[in-house]
């Protein structure tokens, strides 16, 4: 008959702790009403534990289950599939609390807990979270341990210690596995949408969009250069281009992938190449950031005809990629379709702006002259501000150019592109970031949301090339020289959402050091842990010289074997008290005599043994009498004189040598 394993009370406490620990990170992810369920089930369970209530009737459990299912079905209409799946797991986990009394139930709960810990990495990947999950793992394992402990043993901390020891012993092998396990592509397409919302540029640009981003100090991406960095006023990180204008809003149309060869041959090698890696935060968008003209980029990405980079799908988690860029104007013989696309303007509206553009174009022909005119115009009486007046009218460009004359980069880029197009010069607005803060600790450039920027590019028919034009550079030349943080620090809305950064609290020298250190740590974390798959090959090559099956096997077996040996040693090596030297000496004599069949008999005291031997070997009878006396002195009179012990050992040795081997 199989015994029915009841859960002990101490393991029930551990179970509750594990459940709370595992579900806590999900509080921000799953629908809020699951919190009620958690309170209800945990509370009920506590009442059961204290013996006040009974387990809920099956009908109550059924009703709860149905309610949860209905609730999740409702959520399905709004939330992402992944969130729903995880919510279902959490709900099942909580419901299981109300019917948990046997070992089997506990196992189900704990295994689901392990799964939930793993799944929490879909939503959170920070360093503190990783440590929290490690702690949860230790607690869940401790709980698993209590399930297999008997009631007799009630030391509540012992399982935790045991579990921590197990993890310490498991850690080295885990590291080896982590390093060598081949990272392959996804087995099937998964929906990475976790229902998060992202801060960052969007695929349309209305006046005021970019200035809204200055409220946030979130990191957009980090870049680390191999070799030279571009000068500060050249750090234009291109993200996407906007080519359609509807009178107020710029948006982008689908672009085709650029065929690589047609472009590359036209590049002049006099320009500087930059080699760098980017760790980009999730944006929920398809575009990826890069400098100027990306020459080489990962195969998972593609380069569009406007020379921006595009990933295979919306970016739902932090990613890392390596790029080589060249800072050069882009030569492109604009095909008819493209030519028209970059001249597109609404049929009417913004008439004054159109007239201004036509006047400039007729006064001084030539693209260069036109842009110079435009920049002078902007430089003369326009003001650069984070909080421009709202452009409410239908003719927003007119309103900006002739009335308010205050704007952020988006306004200038938008108006500039409009003027260029109105004058028959192909132009587009570019969205991205300008700048980046250098972290001296790890040499990585952090680009934050408040460094979001918009500028424009126009096509010059003389050299058939696209040129960058940043009206901001004339309106607020400092924006290019200083960091955005310095420039805007007096504006009230700047970093309104990041109070710590805003108050300058984090820019004091010590705190700034700490912040930089933390960011460097984070960068290392992103680079070496979260995006290890990007580095694995390089890392292994560095470690092993070359990657061969034998070397990899050695890499697994040597540390793995050593660790297991060490663990085995700590487990099996006898840590008993040292043996009595008297006993050892006696054993030696016994062993010697065994060959002659005269070993000490069962139940024979050493005294009897010696006197018997004295009779058998009359020549040694003196020695044996002395031995007997010696033994009695040491063992019974508790004489701990070391000389006596030595004498005993010498006597034994003499006897051993005198008695010939058979």
């Amino acid at each position, binding site marked *: *008959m199989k*015994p029915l394993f009841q859960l002990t009370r101490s393991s029930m406490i551990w179970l509750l702790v594990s459940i709370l620990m595992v579900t806590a990170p999900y509080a921000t992810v799953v629908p809020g009403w699951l919190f009620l369920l958690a309170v209800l089930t945990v509370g009920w369970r506590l009442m059961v534990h204290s013996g006040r209530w009974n387990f809920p009737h099956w009908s109550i459990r059924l009703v709860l289950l149905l309610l949860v299912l209905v609730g999740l079905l409702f959520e399905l209409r709004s939330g992402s599939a992944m969130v729903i799946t995880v919510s279902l797991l959490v709900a099942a986990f909580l419901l299981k609390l109300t019917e948990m009394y046997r070992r089997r139930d506990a*196992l189900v709960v704990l*295994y689901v807990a*392990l*799964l939930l*810990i*793993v*799944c929490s*990495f*879909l939503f959170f*990947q920070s360093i503190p979270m*990783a440590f929290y*999950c490690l702690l949860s*793992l230790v607690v869940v*394992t401790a709980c*698993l*341990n209590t*399930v*297999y*402990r*008997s009631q*007799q*043993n009630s030391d509540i901390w012992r399982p935790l210690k*045991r579990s921590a020891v*197990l*993890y310490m*012993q*498991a*850690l*080295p*092998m*885990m590291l080896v*596995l*982590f390093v060598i*396990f081949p*990272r*392959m*592509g*996804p*087995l*099937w397409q*998964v929906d*990475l949408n976790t229902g998060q919302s992202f801060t960052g540029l969007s695929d349309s640009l209305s006046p005021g969009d970019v200035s809204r981003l200055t409220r946030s100090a979130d990191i957009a991406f980090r870049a680390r250069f191999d070799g030279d960095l571009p000068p500060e006023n050249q750090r234009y990180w291109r993200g996407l281009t906007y080519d359609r204008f509807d009178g107020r809003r710029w948006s982008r149309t689908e672009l085709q992938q650029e065929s690589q060869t047609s472009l590359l041959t036209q590049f002049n090698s006099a320009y500087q190449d930059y080699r760098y890696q980017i760790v980009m935060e999730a944006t929920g968008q398809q575009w990826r950031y890069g400098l100027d003209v990306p020459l080489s980029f990962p195969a998972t990405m593609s380069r569009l005809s406007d020379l921006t980079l595009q990933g295979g799908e919306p970016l739902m*988690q932090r990613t890392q990629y390596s790029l080589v860029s060249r800072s050069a104007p882009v030569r492109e013989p604009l095909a008819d379709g493209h030519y028209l696309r970059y001249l597109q303007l609404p049929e009417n509206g913004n008439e004054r702006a159109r007239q201004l553009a036509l006047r400039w174009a007729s006064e001084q022909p030539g693209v260069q002259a036109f842009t110079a005119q435009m920049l002078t115009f902007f430089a003369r009486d326009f003001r650069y501000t984070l909080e421009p007046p709202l452009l409410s009218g239908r003719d927003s460009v007119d309103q900006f150019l002739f009335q308010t004359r205050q704007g952020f980069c988006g306004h200038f880029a938008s108006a500039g592109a409009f003027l260029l197009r109105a004058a028959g010069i192909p132009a587009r607005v570019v969205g991205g970031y300008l700048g980046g803060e250098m972290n001296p600790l790890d040499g990585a450039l952090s680009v934050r949301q408040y460094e979001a920027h918009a500028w424009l590019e126009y096509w010059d028919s003389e050299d058939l090339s696209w040129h960058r034009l940043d009206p901001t550079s004339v309106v607020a030349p400092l924006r290019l020289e200083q960091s955005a943080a310095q420039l805007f620090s007096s504006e009230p809305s700047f970093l309104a959402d990041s109070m710590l950064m805003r108050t300058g609290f984090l820019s004091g020298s010590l705190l700034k050091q700490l912040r930089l250190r933390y960011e460097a740590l984070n960068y290392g974390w992103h680079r070496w*842990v*979260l*995006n*290890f*798959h990007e580095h694995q090959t390089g890392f292994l090559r560095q470690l092993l010289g070359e990657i061969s099956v034998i070397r990899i096997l050695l890499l697994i077996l040597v540390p793995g074997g050593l660790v*297991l040996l060490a*663990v*085995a040693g700590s*487990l*099996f090596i*006898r*840590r*008993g008290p040292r043996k009595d030297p008297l006993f050892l000496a006696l054993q030696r004599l016994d062993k010697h005599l065994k060959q002659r069949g005269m070993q000490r008999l069962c139940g024979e005291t050493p005294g009897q043994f010696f006197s018997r031997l004295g009779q058998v070997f009359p020549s040694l009878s003196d020695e044996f009498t002395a031995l007997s006396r010696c033994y009695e002195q040491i063992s019974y009179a508790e004489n701990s004189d070391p000389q006596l012990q030595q004498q005993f050992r010498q006597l034994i040795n003499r006897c051993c040598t005198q008695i010939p081997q058979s």
Partner: protein
Amino acid sequence: MTGSIRQRLGRAVIDWSLRRSPRLKQLTLSQRRIYIMPSQAGAVFLMLLLVMLILAINFQNNLMFAVTFLLASLFVVTILHTYANLSGLTIQFVRGHPCFLGEQAAFDLTLTARGTRQYESIQLRLREGEGAAIDLVEDRQRSLTLYQNTHRRGYLPADALLIETFYPLGLFRAWTWLQVDLKSLVYPRPVEGGQLPDMHDAAGGDQQSPHLAERPGGEEFTGLEQYQAGMSLKRVAWKNYARGQGMHAKQYVELSDNRRWLSWELWPELSGEARLSRLTWWALQLHRRGEEYGLRLPGIEIRPDRGESHRVRVLEALACFGLDSPVELQESRP
């Protein structure tokens, strides 16, 4: 069908491992005797790891990889811990207790830890018996008693002993089957019934003078005995107690002539086993009354006597009556 195959397979494995295990009074578990395999929970755990690995691959999530590998390493490390929870354990087979048919035979074992090692949640079970769990954390040595069902009277060798453990995480089961060098004597089941004829009739003309037997509960005071819980308070020697000599009970006996013979021939209408059962019951009765009684079975005669050792002799004779050479069983040890 598959169930029966599994059962048969399981039995074959047990028999095989038993053949590797000699009958010994004492043995220490080592790698020669300990078997270790993933438990059912361990198999589920492996599947869980597979699910995690697939998740990690699909989401390209290195932290998921890390946790998966950490748990996989944990799985491997647990092998050593589970194994260590049995290895070095010394088992001594102490004694088997006699019992009556229908009761459970009890066997005493002693477990000793090696050195300072700690053992937790060790489960022991005789093949057909119920399980017991034991920890060796603070104590270096512990005794426990295992029980086994009885199906027939006579000497009952202990079943094979299963020692298993799932500690620490239940992912692995380490176990061993041992031959237990103990036996218990199963007395016939005592069944009440019949009347015991007067001794003179049964003995068929025993000419000895009537013996005076002491029966407890009479009126003759014979002395004091140590008071034990459950004794009537009326019998307590309060005077002695008041003198601070401890709690004692006064012993009274009734003196009477009570020598009797328990004979095979008494109830010819009963079958052999039924006769043995009834004789057993009577032997117990007479022993309890403190009477002298003797036993006559075909080929065996035990002179009337009383006392514990006499009782054991009589019961042993009843238990082994008619069975093949119980003596041989007794000395089957190598």
